């Protein structure tokens, strides 16, 4: 399929071209990357969508939650794309992507598109692909995008920098209050959901909810004028899901009313631009053909004590400067 055929197919809401487009975006092959860039240019357009990040520790029930939540969104007339960012990258070998085994009904819905991404490559790489995959899904007519990540490493921060609303899933383990939360997570959380509020754990979940509410009261949150929202739900029993969705809608409304919605997306784009430029620069610095030779020489020099690291570094960077002035 050519790029324009792909673009046409994606716009027509077809599944196969969308999936192929995502493969281009994910590919590490230079010619694929070029085509991916063309494709994204073809599809660039402002669309009325909501991007939601969903995170939480393993075992918190993310997949079960997304299954229930996604089905609710579809019942409300939305089309839902679920993308998974999993940074627990193995050093060798491929990955096992078992997410759909846990989103059985959602994955078979016509209105849903679920694509877990393999974990090879750097975290930055994963984030790059996810951003662009998100744009493709939006072009394909999916108006709510859920970006799921397991809370490992920096992944929550990566995800929060590409969504409109960041949702944190918690376990009912009450008592330890905020101690169980990773540093910095509170500052990016817009909606906090305590899952597994069923059976023996219902009481615990409610207790945890009020503890978090209390603790957040004294914290600097992301948006001073828009309060963080809290919910105790049971994804398994489908309880409390409606409330989470209306809470998110209220949050988005508030963002829009205060003019933050577009501003946020804009600033995400700007910092994304900065990040990409930096990455490209580093790539160029170490991978450019002429530069690689230079780097090898300088490394040898350092090993043989012929040149100081600081001097070598200056020499290295001067190449880029030269290229710039040419």
């Amino acid at each position, binding site marked *: 399929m050519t790029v324009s055929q792909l673009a046409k197919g994606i716009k027509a809401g077809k599944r196969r071209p969308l*999936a192929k487009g995502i493969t281009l975006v994910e590919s*590490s*092959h230079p010619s694929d990357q070029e085509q991916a860039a063309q494709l994204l240019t073809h599809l660039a357009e402002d669309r009325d969508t909501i991007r939601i990040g969903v995170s939480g520790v393993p075992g918190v029930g993310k997949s079960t939650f997304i299954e229930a939540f996604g089905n609710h969104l579809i019942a409300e007339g939305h089309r839902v794309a679920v993308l998974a960012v999993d940074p627990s990258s*193995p050093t060798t*070998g491929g990955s096992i992507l*078992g997410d759909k085994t846990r989103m059985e009904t959602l994955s*078979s819905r016509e209105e849903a598109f679920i694509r877990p991404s*393999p974990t090879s490559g750097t975290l930055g790489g994963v984030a790059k692909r996810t951003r662009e995959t998100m744009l493709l899904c939006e072009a394909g007519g999916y108006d709510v995008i859920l970006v799921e990540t397991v809370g490992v490493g920096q992944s929550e921060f990566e995800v929060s920098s590409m969504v409109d609303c960041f949702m944190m899933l918690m376990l009912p383990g009450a008592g330890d209050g905020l101690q169980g939360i990773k540093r910095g997570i509170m500052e990016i959380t817009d909606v906090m959901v305590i899952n597994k509020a069923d059976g023996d754990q219902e009481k615990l979940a409610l207790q945890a909810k009020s503890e978090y509410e209390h603790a957040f009261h004294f914290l600097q949150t992301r948006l001073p004028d828009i309060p963080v929202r809290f919910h105790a739900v049971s994804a398994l029993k489908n309880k409390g899901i409606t409330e989470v969705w209306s809470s998110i809608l209220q949050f988005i409304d508030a963002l829009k009313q205060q003019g933050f919605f577009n501003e946020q997306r804009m600033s995400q784009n700007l910092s994304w631009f900065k990040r990409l430029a930096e990455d490209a620069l580093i790539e160029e610095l170490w991978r450019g053909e002429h530069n690689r030779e230079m780097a090898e020489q300088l490394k040898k020099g350092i090993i043989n004590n012929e040149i100081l690291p600081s001097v070598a570094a200056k020499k290295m960077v001067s190449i880029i400067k030269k290229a710039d002035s040419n």
Partner: protein
Amino acid sequence: MADQKQSPEEQWRALATKALKGKDPESLNRKSPEGVQIQALYTKDDVEQRNTDSGYPGQFPFTRGPYPTMYTQRPWTIRQYAGFSTAEESNKFYRAALEKGQKGLSVAFDLATHRGYDSDHPRVVGDVGKAGVAIDSVEDMKILFDGIPLDQMSVSMTMNGAVIPIMAAYIVAAEEQGVASEKLSGTIQNDILKEFMVRNTYIYPPQESMRLVADIIEYTSKYMPRFNSISISGYHMQEAGADSALELAFTLADGLEYVKTAVERGLAVDDFAPRLSFFFAIGMNFLMEVSKLRAARSLWAELMKEYFDPKNQKSMMLRTHCQTSGWSLTAQDPLNNVIRTTIEAMAAVLGGTQSLHTNSYDEAISLPTETSSRIARNTQIIIQEETDITHTVDPLGGSYAIESMTSDLKERALGIINEVMEMGGMAKAIEQGYPKRKIEEAAAIKQAGIDKGDLTIVGVNKFINEKEDPVEILDIDNTDVRNRQVELIEAIKEKRDKVAVKEVLEQIKTSAESGKGNLLELAVEATRRRATVGEISTAMERAWGRHSATSQTIKGVYESVYQSDDHYQEIKHKIEAFAEEEGRRPRILVVKMGQDGHDRGAKVVATAFADMGFDVDVGPLFSTPEEAAKQAIENDVHVIGVSTLAAGHKTLIPELISILKNQEAEDIIIVAGGVIPVQDYEFLRSVGVSAIFGPGTNIPKAASEVIDEIRAVKA
């Protein structure tokens, strides 16, 4: 000449060292997969050190057998598991087998029935009548037992998911035969815990399923005193890859959980515990399997005494059914399976089983034929009637090796049971995924051992027969069976009192919701009024929903066995090269379609392929071809690997391929693996399957072939 002052043990050591050309005899000791140290020589000292006096048969803790006289008085029951197609066909088969020396019946139901679907349900098109008999209502059940007096014939039924409507159909079929329920003897499997661990033919969530178990124990203890209310099964754990210690530990821990559930229901332990029965697999580790059955009896007796302190000795007495291992059978050179089954049958008998199923030699290929069924049955008759094995109780009792291994295995299993108890019992452990993970690890390690050649399987990785003779197979025309079943369902629904059926189904739903009443009692009434198996299941499903399991996959275990194997590294490089060229790793969707839940093969392939460098998507269990196609397309996989064990492949794979075509995804290639008769290969290739991998396939080789196939499509 040995020194006069040396003890016999020292002399042996010296002689052995000499025979080994100076090497320490300890070097002959080995570690079994269970982690039990297997000694090259056991002596009186070993038995004394372990302080194991196995005592007398028929006495606590029953190590040497539950009964005082064992086979010297009456041999074990020959109970062959069978069922296929329609109730008429299975009935014919049963009657013929009973005439030829079989003593008890054991019914195999098809997967649609297991999962609580009537034959007319759209999800089960490929499953009806395939790996068992299709039973939709009491009318089918009556045909199944036509001419078989249920007051005289003990009937074992392998049913866990749809256990309520099937028990009800059996009870009502007997009733209409004129047999009251207190005269019924036999066993219902009713072991739901292991379904959540390995076999996956559950319907409802765990907690609700446990209520059904309790309802059945309660009902049978009241109305069916000669009927075993449960068959606590380790069989499927071993088949899924568990070693003997894991099988033993998890099975007994399941047993304790059931006893606890029934006691909490308010039953006195002595009112039901004597009717608990067990079910173990017997594989090729002969001495270990004999020891396992002996260890199982004494461990169960001791655990029951410790936890529940029953007054009746029978409550502590473990009685078991055994089946030879299906997993140990090979599709290659299948007559070898007769020998394997014979050895396994001997282990079961020397271990003291109460009843036995011997597998047919063609079961790794297809359903048993008349010939293979006869040979399987005769295997047992020959042991009973041509040898002297039945003339002595527990003939291996007192063997230094057997007594030591019994004791070591017991200790090992007890360690695992204690771990489970610390987690809060088996239900809690299963919730945490602990047993499943342990079993899957053991399976992956075993597979890698075979692929690498560390574990010998004759005809598969050693002494391969280059020129295989074709084997006669039994093929079920599934479309015909389904049409016939659908007609029957329609006829029943036409004739019955619709209001009465609706009323009782509503009562079932209410009872499910409220937790009050006995669901089997209500189902018996519903069955009398001609509600179908599917309708009764659905009534409960309306209250509880259908359970979908969260599936975990392990990584790195398969590779750990290989470490620096050159051939394996070669395949990894091949995959890396592919990834480099393509810009991404080869991506495969491993999927099971239809109602078959045996996912050992799919899991092992998934973890091995990922270790070798594939990106692997794992499809949900019980997928339809539509769902599999959607997932494959969304994830843009290169290849779909269909794992099939239940003979639905001839319906489901062509459907999958045609759906892919309709969505312009014909470049996604299809490979199939599992139990597929050679006779079907041609057909599957003609509809577009690129490669077929039978049982015993070397996985790295298969991976390499898959890469070649993907390249061929790209070219």
